[in-house]
């Protein structure tokens, strides 16, 4: 840690990890409800568990991105953060608003929550991933504005690197595109069309700029490779991301009432979407092979390499698998989509945030480059446990998905939805088992933060 104000990243990272743990617990609840349908009913119906699972994911990733930004920008700009106090105020605002929203989901029926929060004034609730009450959405906008102001002012007074400009660009895009969550026309087709401007243009657009910038920062730190080289790669990768990803939105416009020409635009451009992810793999391994220093934080390097590989597999390969419209005709809205969603989010966004946390936390806690041997060992084990478990979850869901597509959509005598679900239950059990191992990996990751005693006790 070079600048005092980087310390504000720490509460953001801690909150992110806490919410991550919550997300996984609710994931396990849903996984069990897939096979024991009435588990926890009527206390936590599936839709509530799912809302908590996905909303916690979004919120903790946002905490992670913000923490990463607060850590990275002062160092890149070579100046203290414009206002550490504002960063802390926004932290508590966001945490309290997030916690109240989740409690609202769990404690009152959703319709009552809608009434309570004045959804009638500006109805925005009840759409996938954008279930937050309108009030919470407004809160998110306020937090984002304050955050962007703080980061923008810091950049203005300091050095402007490609990494920090791209990061700010991605974060600004994130905030701007979120405004479409307030547009909820009565026409379902229009509603769906612009809903994707938030969802797709986030995860297959501006979030990738954030991912690229954080990855580039980490690679500079752990490899010592020249900034010029790394930033050149970064520009080319994000250029390919937006060139393929923006029109790639079309792969969501096949079957929702939009014109058929989207089947061409969507298929062709989204078939190219794996390219930037593949470049990211080549980039990350190249930089590590050409390293000019051996950074002691092996765990952080592992997470950084892991994120490139898993993002390529999850977003690139698993995305391509069902993105061509003739294939998607059969796979749309099945467990294939769920399989892709899990590996893509884990590889691209969970792992990059964990990479940043692994790199920054020892420095933020004053331990030096690492928190000691034992902590590193635990982290490496947790990396493999989480990664292998997530691959297993993805494979089991893919198996479930292939059978579902065959039984329900392709067989000469199609099986109804619920009958199909009972027939593929075995795969859901296996997925749940893999989920338990994933939780184990996460627990080890958390334990690694408390395994640093030997380092503190031993004289360096």
């Amino acid at each position, binding site marked *: 840690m070079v600048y005092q104000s980087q310390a504000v990243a720490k509460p953001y990272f801690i909150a992110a990890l806490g919410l991550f743990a919550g997300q996984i617990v609710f994931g396990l609840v849903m996984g069990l409800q897939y096979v024991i349908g009435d588990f926890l009913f009527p206390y936590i119906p599936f839709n509530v568990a799912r809302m908590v699972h996905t909303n916690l994911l979004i919120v903790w990733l946002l905490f992670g991105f913000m923490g990463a930004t607060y850590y990275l920008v002062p160092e890149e700009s070579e100046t203290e953060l414009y206002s550490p106090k504002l960063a802390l105020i926004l932290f508590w605002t966001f945490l309290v608003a997030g916690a109240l929203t989740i409690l609202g989901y769990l404690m009152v029926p959703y319709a009552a929550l809608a009434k309570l929060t004045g959804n009638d004034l500006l*109805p925005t609730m009840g*759409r*996938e991933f954008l279930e937050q009450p309108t009030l919470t959405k407004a809160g998110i906008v306020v937090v984002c504005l304050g955050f962007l102001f703080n980061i923008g002012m810091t950049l203005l007074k300091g050095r402007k690197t490609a990494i920090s400009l791209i990061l700010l660009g991605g974060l600004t895009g994130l905030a701007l595109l979120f405004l479409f969550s307030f547009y909820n026309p009565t026409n379902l087709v229009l509603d769906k069309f612009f809903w994707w401007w938030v969802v797709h243009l986030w995860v297959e657009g501006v979030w990738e700029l954030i991912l690229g910038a954080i990855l580039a920062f980490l690679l500079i730190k752990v490899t010592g490779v020249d900034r010029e080289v790394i930033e050149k790669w970064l520009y080319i990768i994000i250029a390919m991301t937006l060139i393929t990803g923006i029109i790639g939105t079309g792969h969501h416009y096949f079957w929702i009432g939009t014109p058929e020409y989207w089947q061409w635009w969507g298929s062709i451009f989204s078939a190219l979407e794996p390219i930037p992810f593949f470049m990211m793999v080549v980039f990350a391994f190249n930089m590590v092979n050409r390293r000019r220093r051996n950074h002691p934080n092996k765990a952080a390097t592992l997470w950084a390499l892991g994120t490139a590989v898993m993002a390529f597999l999850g977003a690139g390969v698993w995305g391509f698998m069902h993105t061509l419209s003739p294939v998607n005709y059969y796979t749309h809205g099945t467990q294939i989509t769920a399989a892709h969603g899990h590996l893509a989010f884990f590889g691209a966004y969970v792992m990059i945030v964990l990479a940043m946390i692994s790199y920054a936390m020892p420095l933020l806690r004053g331990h030096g480059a690492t928190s000691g041997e034992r902590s590193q060992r635990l982290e490496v084990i947790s990396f493999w446990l989480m990664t292998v478990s997530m691959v297993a979850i993805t494979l089991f869901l893919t198996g479930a998905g292939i059978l579902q597509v065959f039984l329900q959509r392709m067989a000469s005598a199609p099986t109804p939805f619920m009958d199909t679900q009972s027939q593929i239950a075995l795969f859901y059990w296996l997925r749940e088992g893999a989920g338990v191992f994933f939780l184990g990996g996460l627990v080890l990751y958390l334990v690694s933060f408390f395994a640093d005693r030997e380092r503190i006790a031993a004289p360096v």
Partner: protein
Amino acid sequence: MKEKFTKTMARNIFLGGSLFFILLFLALTVGTVRALPQRDHRENITPAVILGKKIWEVNNCIGCHTLLGEGAYFAPELGNVYTRRGGANGGKEFIKGWIQSMPSGVKGRRQMPNFKLSEQELDAVAEFLKWTSEINSAKWPPNIEG
């Protein structure tokens, strides 16, 4: 990458490429928004359909079901449920009766909550799902099972 390929060139590809594809995307969006009236039969969006969409939203139906393939994969597709359950011959009545009879309470089976909807709200949800089933969705889903 060759030495002659500079960071400035890379940045220009990023800025130029992004700008071009953003503009193309906006152009396609304008084209789509203009073409939609022929496909979404918006002239049939009655007050009941509007109320139905609202009931759909404030009860978070998308948290379990898919609608035109989007949503959660825990419960059946509802974009074509009107047709699947009889269409003009009882589709609406089936939907209303089903919602009212929930939860089934069958042990171990997936449960749908009872949302305590009024007769008017039940009718609106059914009207919304009927309207949705008549959107031109490019022949999706592949068969009646959704």
